[in-house]
């Protein structure tokens, strides 16, 4: 790891609670291939940030890994007797289009293009392109819904008495909210398990 890379990674960790600041810093220093407006970056710097293009309104959870290369050939060099591999590295840029959300602990593989208007669910491993206006989930990530359906569901939740509250800066929830969360949880579980028992 070069000193410059280590310094950048260190700065990225310093901005742990503020992914916008991370993006601002990366943009100012020209670290990535491209960074659009109002986008948020993960804490882990990809090995080759210049191979990553992030467009506008992109939210990437801080735990997401963007993989821009693979070193399998270096392993095969010793492991495979069938062919004499050289210690090469295969590169793969990643392009993330406008209005994309990438959920916690997802992994984006080299050579992938995502979106626009796409959601990558928690823990997905995105090994192939994500079509526009879709929700993908799983390992490997597959289309499970449309962006439009998510909007509709959230409109519905917004209108009902769901557990929503204005997030405060200190990332704390009060006693009342905690109580309400458990009440709603228990109520729902009692309803759904009741039917199973009756069967």
């Amino acid at each position, binding site marked *: 790891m070069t000193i410059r890379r280590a310094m950048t990674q260190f700065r990225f960790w310093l901005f742990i609670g503020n992914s916008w600041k991370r993006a601002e810093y990366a943009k100012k220093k020209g670290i990535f291939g491209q960074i659009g407006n109002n986008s948020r970056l993960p804490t882990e710097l990809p090995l080759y940030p210049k191979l990553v293009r992030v467009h506008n309104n992109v939210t990437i959870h801080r735990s997401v890994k963007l993989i821009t290369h693979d070193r399998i050939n270096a392993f095969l060099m010793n492991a495979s007797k069938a062919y004499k591999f050289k210690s090469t590295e295969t590169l793969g840029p990643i392009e993330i289009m406008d209005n994309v959300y990438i959920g916690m602990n997802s992994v984006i593989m080299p050579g992938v293009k995502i979106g626009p208007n796409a959601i990558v669910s928690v823990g997905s491993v995105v090994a192939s392109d994500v079509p526009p206006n879709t929700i993908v989930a799983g390992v490997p990530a597959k289309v499970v819904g449309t962006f439009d*359906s998510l909007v509709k569901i959230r409109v*519905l939740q917004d*209108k009902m008495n769901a557990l929503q509250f204005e997030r405060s800066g200190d990332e704390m929830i009060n006693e009342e909210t905690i109580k309400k969360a458990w009440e709603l949880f228990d*109520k729902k579980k009692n*309803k759904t398990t009741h039917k199973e028992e009756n069967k």
Partner: protein
Amino acid sequence: MNELIKALNELLPTVDFEKEKSLVSEGILDSLSLVSIMLMINEVYHVDIPVEEMSPENFDSVESMYALIEKIKASSSEMH
């Protein structure tokens, strides 16, 4: 109507669709279940539910879901 109940029971066997009258208000249906219900309605009834109709009342019971489907069907046939 019975057809809709049957389809919903197949889709989400743990939910009592005939008995429950506040499926959304009480949080019995989570967001993923609602997505699958919307997809099913779209597939079976060829009805695309507009954003304006996304309200708890329209999804709280099988009756209200059925009424919503009929309403959208009627309004779309008026337009043609």
